[in-house]
């Protein structure tokens, strides 16, 4: 992490329910806000009174305007914190700690294979835009969801780059997104693509195995319970292969080399 984290009051500029229990949030931050890259996150305070952990959210879009920086998030309501967030209205000021963590580190020479599971697509939509703008040679986006209803951000992607899969067959390949790639787009695995993945822990663990099987590099964005997001509480420990120490994913991640992670010992979120 190069920038130092800072505390800001972020103003809600826009906030919309884009699907059932699924929200798009646009936050306005001071114009001098440090560049925040795909895979980095903001740690938001979702409670007004009492103590709760802050809640981490990956950045989906970062735009510098003359007077402000705009940051977009997509989030799903899954518990009390995100439920409270869903009541934020344009004009509200919210307590924002960021930018935090280490994001994806793009290998310009290799094809890019973005693997998204559910709301994990969020940071990858941002990565996709940057890759496109940088004229990256080969970019593929594989997006798996439980149900078609849970797709989002599709307008940010070019159709020809996208492969879809769903657990219930409601859209795209019927099954998980890694099977979909192997079955429907084996060609994507040629040319040694680097995998950039984000999604539920089970998908990340599977991605680890997949990358090993196909001898590919893979960067995965971990999910975990964060006490601080600052490397202080030592709560977000990730077990590593071949190393006795644990790595703090909030600080050294959330994006990690899938091959370093001891997936057997990663706790379920």
């Amino acid at each position, binding site marked *: 992490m190069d920038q130092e984290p800072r505390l800001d009051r972020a103003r809600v500029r826009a906030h919309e329910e884009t699907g059932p229990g699924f929200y798009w949030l646009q936050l306005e931050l001071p114009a001098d806000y440090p560049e925040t890259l795909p895979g980095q996150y903001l740690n938001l305070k979702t409670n007004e009174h009492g103590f709760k952990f802050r809640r981490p959210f990956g950045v989906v879009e970062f735009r510098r305007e003359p007077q402000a920086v705009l940051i977009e998030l997509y989030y799903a309501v899954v518990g009390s914190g995100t439920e409270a967030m869903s009541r934020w209205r344009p004009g509200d000021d919210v307590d924002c700690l960021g930018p935090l963590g280490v994001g994806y580190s793009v290998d310009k020479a290799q094809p890019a294979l973005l693997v998204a599971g559910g709301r994990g697509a969020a940071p990858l939509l941002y990565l996709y835009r940057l890759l496109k703008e940088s004229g990256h040679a080969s970019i593929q986006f594989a997006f798996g969801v439980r149900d078609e209803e849970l797709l989002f951000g599709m307008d940010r992607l070019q159709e020809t780059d996208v492969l879809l899969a769903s657990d219930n067959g409601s859209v795209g390949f019927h099954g998980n997104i890694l099977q979909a790639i192997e079955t429907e787009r084996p060609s994507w695995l040629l040319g040694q693509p680097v995998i950039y993945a984000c999604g539920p822990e089970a998908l990340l663990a599977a991605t680890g195995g997949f990358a090993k099987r196909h001898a590919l590099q893979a960067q995965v964005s971990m999910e*975990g319970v964060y006490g601080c997001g600052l490397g202080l509480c030592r*709560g977000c420990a990730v077990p590593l292969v071949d190393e006795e120490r644990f790595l703090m994913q909030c600080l050294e991640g959330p994006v990690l080399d899938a091959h370093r992670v001891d997936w057997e010992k990663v706790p379920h979120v």
Partner: protein
Amino acid sequence: MSKLSITAGGLKLKNPVLIASGIGGYGAELIPLLDLEAIGGVVTKTIFEEPRPGNPPPRIAETPNGMLNSIGLEGPGIERYEKEKLTRLEGLDTRIVVSIGGYGPEDFAKLAERLDDLDRVDAIELNISCPNVKEGGLNMSTHPNLAEEVVVATRRVTKKPLWAKLTPNVTSISDVGRACLHGGADALSAINTLLGMRIDVDRREPLLARGMGGLSGPAIRPVALAKCFELVRALNCDVVGIGGVEDTSSALEFLVAGCKAIQVGTVVYAEPQVPVDIVAGIEAYMDKHGFTELSQVIGTLKVEETLLIGPKATKAK
């Protein structure tokens, strides 16, 4: 001399607000987030002689107005602590209290002796909430004798102020506190975490890999305050109040109860500025009430002796 200055357990502080051990890493990590020179000091994360990888994850869980942790005293060991961590605090105008741990009195003594030589170390906090391996794994801070042995062993090798940090998970915290004072402690830090647990009922597994962990945060403040008040009344000694401090008013509760200083823990994760805000808040409180020095606040709780309940309600001394 600022009107917030105070001497707690032999340590002169510019104000009574410190960061609790294990909360702000080894201190320097906090620098981008809060002005360490604005607060009284930092207690660094408990350090052992050897490096410790800590416990397997999951290590933390949120609870109602609190959290559980089972970090397992992860740390780089004293060697790297001294070289890589402590040095980063050089020149900072704030007190550094170094928390040390071990599996028996000798371990503590070894570390204390080493720290005694270091100018940057202003005081030592003994985290005695560790199992004594020689005594069959008994938690040292639940046994007055074991606790006293640790203090005696460290007292012998250092002149630096010694604070003994007590666990609340005992029938009588003042019995353990008395033993520590007898052993030569300059102050008692109270409290460490309460033992607690959470279960994921769908998976039917504990939410912490090790089953139980330490409960901290505002949820435990009433317990912490009761324990501190018990110590103050029973032992009439310097107490450093810890547990669920979240704002000026909760910090003042401990001071009014008789604590000489307080440490802020868990809430720093949610609101890193809280310790600095509390310093300003205490000053504003003193102005409002016309107090010109902190001693006019400390221990000024008015109690009706005849009504009071609680262990050791009568002052020894």
